[in-house]
């Protein structure tokens, strides 16, 4: 239950003042985006999606008479640009949004609720993977329609696993641990059983989401890292470093993850769907049969993982909401999603779309289809990314011996509580009103 702050119209003047203040602090970032008055839908898209989406929309533009202007943003600048655009009142009509950013923009009151529009449309909410759909809801309404999904699972080397005496990937933590042990023994001192980059928080977050206890408690007001569940996940995660299964390294020191995976420097790697394409392209033909994907093992049998991905959102200040919504509806059609998958390799969020033979035949995508039925959203608060980053930093500090493993959960709670202080103040004040 993320909070959403409505903007009373009496606040207009103060907002204008505020905008002037922020405008002074971050000048000229949005200078080029003057508002257009015609019926063109301004669509902000990031990275590779921004490059190909124009092609997908051509048919819609021809048949429905909607004009769409796609503006590409690099991922690295997108977050800042969105917040500056909000402050400067230059938000687009339609935007691709990483679903971890959604709670933040909902809290800003920047997004248009879409629940009513979905109910009156061709979009069937039940056809979407439940965990992914859930990440787009906040305060009882829907604010985005999933566009493509991203979750984390195992990439592994069946050949090295076979050498260690195992024919199939692990399903539970116990099995996984036994395999890691055997692998480490086979590959020796200079190679590792698994890569858990110290600069990524996703693997630990995924293992933590498999636990029964939530990561934040009391309506996401406080950290819940002292819970037995998180302790279990953290212990398991840290043991992989302590026992030498994983190198104490970030992606920086690995330099080229794909090469090293091909060389067998590590046999397990927790990563996302984009790496299917990368491994296909970057590993030599001889190694193409030597890698595979598998669902993430859980404490007792197949476990959950992160519900990530991008959604399509409509901005509240848009004057073209109907046209923007038609674009969303069009991009949600299974046939269009299949073409989108063919262009980008992005995995579709609707089960119907997965009936496509190209997707069904892809052995690497199969594990993702399986995993998608077991994805869970991370806590939906604007502060989550910062808290997840604290989790990553804590692991790094324990691995380097700066902090004792036993004191990490309490320390994490203290940090999360400090980060959530403003949220508690706002919720309490609203409750008191």
């Amino acid at each position, binding site marked *: 239950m993320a909070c959403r*702050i*409505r*903007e009373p119209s009496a*606040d207009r003047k*103060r*907002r204008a*003042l*505020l905008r002037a*203040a*922020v405008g*002074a*602090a971050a*000048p000229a970032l949005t200078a080029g985006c003057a508002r257009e008055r015609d019926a063109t839908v301004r669509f902000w898209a990031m990275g590779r999606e921004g490059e190909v989406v124009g092609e997908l929309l051509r048919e819609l533009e021809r048949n429905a008479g909607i004009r769409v202007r796609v503006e590409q943003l690099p991922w690295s600048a997108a977050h*800042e640009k969105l*917040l500056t655009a*909000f*402050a400067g009142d230059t938000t687009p009509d339609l935007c691709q949004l990483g679903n971890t950013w959604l709670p*933040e923009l909902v*809290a*800003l*009151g920047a997004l248009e609720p879409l629940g009513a529009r979905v109910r009156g449309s061709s979009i069937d909410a039940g056809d979407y993977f439940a965990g992914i759909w859930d990440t787009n809801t906040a305060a009882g309404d829907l604010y985005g329609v999933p566009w493509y999904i991203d979750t984390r699972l195992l990439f592994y080397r069946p050949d090295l696993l076979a050498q260690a005496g195992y024919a199939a990937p692990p399903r539970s933590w116990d099995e996984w641990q036994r395999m890691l042990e055997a692998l480490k023994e086979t590959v020796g001192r200079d190679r590792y059983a698994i890569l858990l980059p*110290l*600069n990524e928080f996703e693997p630990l977050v995924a293992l933590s989401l498999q636990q029964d206890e939530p990561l934040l408690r009391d309506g996401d007001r406080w950290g819940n890292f002292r819970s037995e569940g998180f302790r279990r996940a953290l212990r398991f995660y840290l043991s992989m470093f302590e026992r030498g299964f994983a190198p*104490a*390294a*970030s992606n*920086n*020191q690995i*330099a080229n993850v794909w090469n090293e995976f091909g060389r067998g420097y590590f046999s397990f790697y927790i990563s996302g769907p984009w790496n299917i394409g990368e491994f296909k392209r970057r590993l030599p033909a001889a190694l193409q049969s030597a890698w595979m994907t598998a669902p993430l093992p859980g404490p007792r049998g197949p476990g959950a993982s992160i519900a990530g991905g991008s959604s399509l959102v409509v901005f509240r200040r848009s004057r073209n909401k109907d046209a923007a919504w038609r674009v969303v509806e069009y991009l949600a059609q299974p046939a269009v999603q299949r073409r989108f998958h063919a262009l980008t390799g992005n995995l579709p969020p609707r089960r119907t779309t997965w009936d496509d033979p190209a997707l069904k035949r892809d052995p690497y995508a199969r594990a993702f289809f399986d995993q998608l039925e077991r994805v869970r959203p991370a806590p939906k608060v*604007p502060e989550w990314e*910062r808290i997840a980053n604290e989790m990553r*930093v804590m692991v*790094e*500090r324990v*691995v*380097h011996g*700066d902090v004792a493993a036993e004191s990490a959960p309490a320390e994490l709670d203290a940090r999360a509580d400090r980060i959530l202080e*403003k*949220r508690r*103040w*706002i919720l309490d004040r609203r409750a008191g009103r």
Partner: protein
Amino acid sequence: MKRSYAGWIFVAPALIAMAVFFVVPVATALAMSFTDFDIYALADLANLRFVGFDNYGRLLHTPLFWQALLNTLYFVVLGVPLSIVASLGAALLLHSPLARLKAFYRTALFAPVVTTLVAVAIVWRYLLHPRYGWLNYMLAAFGIDPIDWLGDPHWAMPAIILLSVWKNFGYNMIILLAALQAVPTELYEAARIDGASAWRQLRDITLPALAPVLLLVSVLTMAGHFQLFAEPYVMTQGGPAQRTLTVLYFMYEEGFKWWSLGSASAVAFVLFAIMFTVTLLQLRVARYTEAR
């Protein structure tokens, strides 16, 4: 009366530009540093709290801020002298009458300054790679075990210092070289006639002649080093275990990554106060030595 009026008109463009692009933003930032401005306040100003000096007080109780300050001081204390010695050494070598191909070396040594840091960082990441890196390969020739330059908390900052000195020494070198060329040759001739050794000449002629320029160079280098950001940003992202996270990096994360503009502004003013004090001290020391 009329003349002074004309004077104001002449400086008006500059004054307006300064007011709009410097005074107003700085005043806004100062005001912001006494509030808890964040994304909630961006949504609705009713969520903005005036917190007085809380941001500053909280900084003193944030271990990460102290870590960042310590990292920055480490970089300044080791990096500034190293950088100036390297610049001076290179300038002296280039200025030496024995040097050949001066124009070539001058360009070559200046090249890192004008090279894009991102390109440099990619090359250096490979040079410093723990297993395939050229640096560890050379160390192995001396029987030294491989060092995980960017992954070991103890070695990451030295690696950043090495990169930064290499990248930036050329700039000061050019300034010092120009100053060296301005020292009258008669002084050296007279010294040689008096039988002064090369060391004596350096100590009693070159260095005193360079003193004002060295002061300028050290003030500028110091100010630049306190604002270390780009090198760790592209090389280590502040890691490993936050050992290369500097004050400016800390401010960037607070402000632009987490959007806590209130506390980020406070960090900016603390950094400004530190740099201002250090520069004052430098000038004081310089005046004192000059007077002696």
